[in-house]
Structures are given as C-alpha cells and as structure tokens.
C-alpha cells in the first residue's frame, strides 16, 4: 500500500550557536543561521524508510519565515520529495496552539493536492522550544489519533500502523488507526547523510511557499492573536560548573593531574 506521508520540519536557530539577547530581553534570531531541527531528521529518516518499504510520497511541511528555505534544502537532499513552506507575517508570534492549527491546515492543503494523507510524522520536540506539543495538537485539529515518543514504526497494513513507543521503564506496542500523527523519538532512526549526487538532485526539487490565504486558515486563530500564551520574560541560566578539563597522552599523568586537582579543591571521591 503506497503511503502519502507528510513530515513536519521546523527550521530553528542552529542549536550549536550561542543564543543572543536583544537589549529588551527578547531573543535575537536575526544573525543566527537556520537549520532543520535536529530531532526532525529522525522523523524524516523514519518517513523515508516507510516510503522505501511501502512506496508513496514524502512531502515536507514547515512554518517559518521565507529565508528558512535554505535550511530545508538539506532535508530535500536526504530524499524528501518536495516541501511546502508556510510563510506569512500574520503567523509571527504563534504559540503551539496557533502553530498546530496552521500546520493542520497545511496538511489539509497537501491532501487536496495529493489525495489522502496516511501519516503525519514529526520530531519529538524542537531544539528551540522543546515542547513536543505540535504532534498531539496537530492530531487534535485533524481529529485523528497521535502517538508521541515513537521509537520504531513496525508495520503498516489494512488501515493501521503498529508502533513501538517509549515509556518509563520500557516499551509499549500499539496498533493505531490511520491516518495518524507520529512523533518520532530519535533513538532508533539514524538520519542518512546525503551524497553529493543527492544534493545536486535536490536542487530541482520544489519548495512551494504559501501564505495564510492560500491554505484557508482563520487569521484570528494564528499569530499573536490566536496564541493563548505570552512569554513574559527570558533569562540565561548560569551553569555554575568548574569546567576543568584534562587531556594528556600519558594516562598516568592524566589521571594524576585530575586527582591532584580534586585534592586541591578538597573533594573526596569516596562516600
């Protein structure tokens, strides 16, 4: 059974970059480079493996400013067939409720073009907001089941998907009716590295930029107006660690230096 899969990819400020504040306390995103949310690459890998197994199409969907398109190229090179980029000034300031509403409208738009969408896959959380809300919330807007913390997709057949889900202390195996939203925990899908040929091929792939009017969302339910939550304040936490790092090619000297430092700092290793 060929599958139509939508994969949600969030362009984020490169998590390796140090977050910068503006004088008014808001985050300065202008200078930082955007990349695909690292967790979403596991979701992309899961989607691609499903396409390899069952056939079908994998369409990427992102909500971000237009300059985020560059970040999506990398994901197209991994093998995603095409991207829809939802970009509109009216979407700015959306919290997870508003974002999930807009993305669910994006899924519906893709559905009108492609036919029925069987699976929506997304990452377990984004590296900048770390909420993990989008998966369950998109499921709710679309009125379909969702599963968070999916470790592996085991099987798809007869209108159901069987997944292994992480829980505290172990796993759960679930049979879930399609269509469904799956949030992929990045533990068992190793994202593929595109080859040069993949990168070249991806240049011909389409990124369709659409706005609020194209996907037919109610403008009062997106952006700041459609967002129940307000960020009041942000501050940096100081990680108060000594950060004394030891290197030495001679292991005896290395361990000795380390123990010497502990002694100097008055730290006892035993209980």
């Amino acid at each position: 059974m060929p599958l139509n899969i939508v994969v949600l990819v969030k362009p984020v400020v490169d998590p390796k970059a140090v977050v910068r504040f503006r004088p008014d306390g808001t985050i300065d995103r202008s200078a930082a480079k955007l990349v695909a949310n690292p967790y979403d690459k596991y979701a992309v890998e899961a989607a691609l493996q499903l396409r390899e197994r069952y056939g079908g199409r994998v369409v990427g969907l992102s909500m971000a400013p237009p300059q985020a398109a560059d970040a999506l190229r990398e994901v197209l090179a991994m093998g995603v067939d095409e991207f829809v980029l939802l970009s509109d000034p009216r979407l700015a300031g959306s919290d997870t409720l508003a974002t999930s509403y807009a993305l669910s409208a994006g899924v519906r738009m893709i559905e009108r073009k492609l036919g029925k969408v069987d699976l929506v896959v997304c990452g377990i959380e984004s590296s900048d907001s770390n909420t993990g809300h989008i998966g369950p919330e998109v499921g709710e807007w679309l009125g379909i089941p969702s599963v968070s913390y999916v470790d592996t997709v085991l099987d798809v057949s007869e209108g159901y998907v069987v997944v292994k889900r992480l829980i505290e202390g172990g796993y759960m195996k679930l049979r879930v009716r399609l269509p469904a939203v799956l949030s992929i925990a990045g533990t068992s899908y190793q994202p593929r590295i595109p080859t040069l040929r993949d990168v070249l091929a991806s240049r011909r792939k389409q990124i369709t930029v659409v706005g609020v009017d194209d996907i037919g969302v109610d403008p009062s339910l997106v952006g700041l107006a459609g967002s129940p939550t307000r960020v009041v304040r942000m501050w940096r936490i100081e990680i108060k660690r000594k950060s004394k790092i030891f290197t030495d090619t001679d292991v005896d000297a290395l361990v000795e230096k380390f123990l010497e430092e502990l002694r100097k700092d008055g730290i006892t290793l035993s209980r």
Partner: protein
Amino acid sequence: MARTVLVYVEVSDGKIEDHSLELIGKARELATKGGMDVGALVVGHGVRELARELIYRGADEVHVVDDPRLGTYRLLPYTKAVAHVVGATSPEVVLFSATVVGRELAPRVAARLRTGITADCTDVDIGSWTDPLSGRVYENILYQIRPTFGGEIMAAIVTPQHRPQMATVRPGLFPIPQRDETRSGRVVEWSVELDEDSLDSIEVLEVRREMRKVDLKSAKIIVSGGRGAGPKGFELVRELAKLLGGEVGASRAAVDAGWISYDHQVGLTGQTVKPDIYIAVGISGAVQHIVGMKDSKIVIAINKDPEAPIFRVADYGIVGDLFVVLPKLIEKLKQGRLPGGS
C-alpha cells in the same frame, strides 16, 4: 463554585505515582496563594479507592472517572474523559506531570479546549501580570517557568485570557506532601460517554516494563555508564562504583542495549538524581540525560571526544579512552590515594 487548581493524577499498578503527589503538594501551595481549592482528577479502572488518599495528601475535591474500558491508558478515550471533567468544572489551572503520558495527553486536551499550555515546567507560581500592550492587569494568574533553547535559557510564560491555564511539570522537583488523615474532601464520580470511534483508534498490543528496584535518588555517589562503555566497560563502571561506595547509573542507550537494567537509568525517562558526585563514563550528554543529573553537586565526565556536550556541564573532565583511564583511576584509588582522604 470555588476556583480550583486541578491536578491530573497518574496511576500505575493501582498506585498513585509519586510525581502526582508532588503536584498535589505544589497545587496546595498555589491554591493557598491565589485563594483557590485543590482538585484532583483520576482516570482509570478500579481507581475509585484512591480518592481518599488524594484527600489525605491535600486535595479538597477528587474527580473520579472509573470505567473498565479505561483500564489501560489510551490517548483518545483519556482525552475525552479529561476534557469532559475539565469542561464541566472549569478549573482555573490544570497541571499534569511531564511524563510520557502527561506530555502527550496534556497538549491533546489543551488543543481540544482551545487553550494554551506550557511544557515541562520546572516551577509554577501564582502572581499578577500587566499586559504591556493593553495595560490590563491580571491578578492571581499562573506563571509557568521552564527551560528553553535546549536548557540554556529560562522563560516565564502566562496564559492571560484563556482558561484553564495548563502546564506539564517535571517530576522529582517538589516534596511529597505529608499524609493527613484528618483532612476531609468531596469525591465526585463521573460517567463519561466513550464513543467506539475513539476507543477503537488505539489498541495496546503489548507492554514491557521493568519494575524499579534501585533507588538512585538518595545515593551520594553515582557512577554512570553509557553507550561508550559497552558490556566490558560496565564491569569497570561497577568496580569504580563499588570502590567509592556508590551506586551504578546508566544512560538510556546502555539500558536499551541490555548492559544494565532500567532501574539504573538516569534522565527524562529514568530517574532524576542529585548526588554529591556524579561520574559520567562514555556518556555523550544528550539533553534527555542531562535533565536527570544536572543538579548533582559535582559532575565528573570521562569521554574520549573532547567535543562531547557532557563536558559543558562537568566540573572535571577527563578526555580519554575509558578503557585506559578507568583501570588507571581504579588502580590509583586502590593504592589508598583517595583525594582529600587520609
């Protein structure tokens, strides 16, 4: 009707989860501050008997949805049950634990009620807020405090106009309230109409869960091994732990590989630990691991990759191959050269 702070209570094997009790305690604090009542909501099968215990722990009213079809957690019927009770009782605040269940169920309920929600809070508080745009003052609203940007930055979030104000709160941060058998409260039983459609949407085929035996929470010293250790390395990790009189911890990767049982796992889906000394061996330092050990007094990391993120949260870092470093360290410690000691 009194304004309430409602806590969604998780039950496992007929027992109230500790993190849910912690939340009842926290809710009590919020309720006192904001002139509210504490409500508890428990969903499942055979959970009716737990109501009294929740009252002893601080709930003023307990809402029970007890139904044989809710015996195992399944997202859609549970969403239905929670949204039903919340919709009918209109609490000001609803708190969930930031567990795998809470972090899936809470946003689903929030979206159904078209309200806001904040994930994975490390603290919640009651206070007032003035909207800088309209100048309007909101009294006694919920401050939702959480790390963001991978933990580097903290954010305070409010939900000024929508109700309920919702949040998931990280387990292991607040004390479990004392049991007080003199407390009394109200128990309300609900019967929720569960449609076949949502009942059929998800079927649980299998649950594999290890019971918790090791208590890492009270350990003073923990030596944890990760994927880098491998089964051989774990022998060294165990030896060091024994030598220091500490416990053995592990990353999820090590647990998944089967080198050690789940009850040793530290992190988001394992235990939250705060020992005096935490030694991470062959652990890269993924956020999900760090949330479980970052409040340790002293962190020592041994890793061959100088770029490993674990070094960013370490007081002392040894860059080197654990198979060379650990035997040497053990040897030196055995020679009676425990630093700071005799």
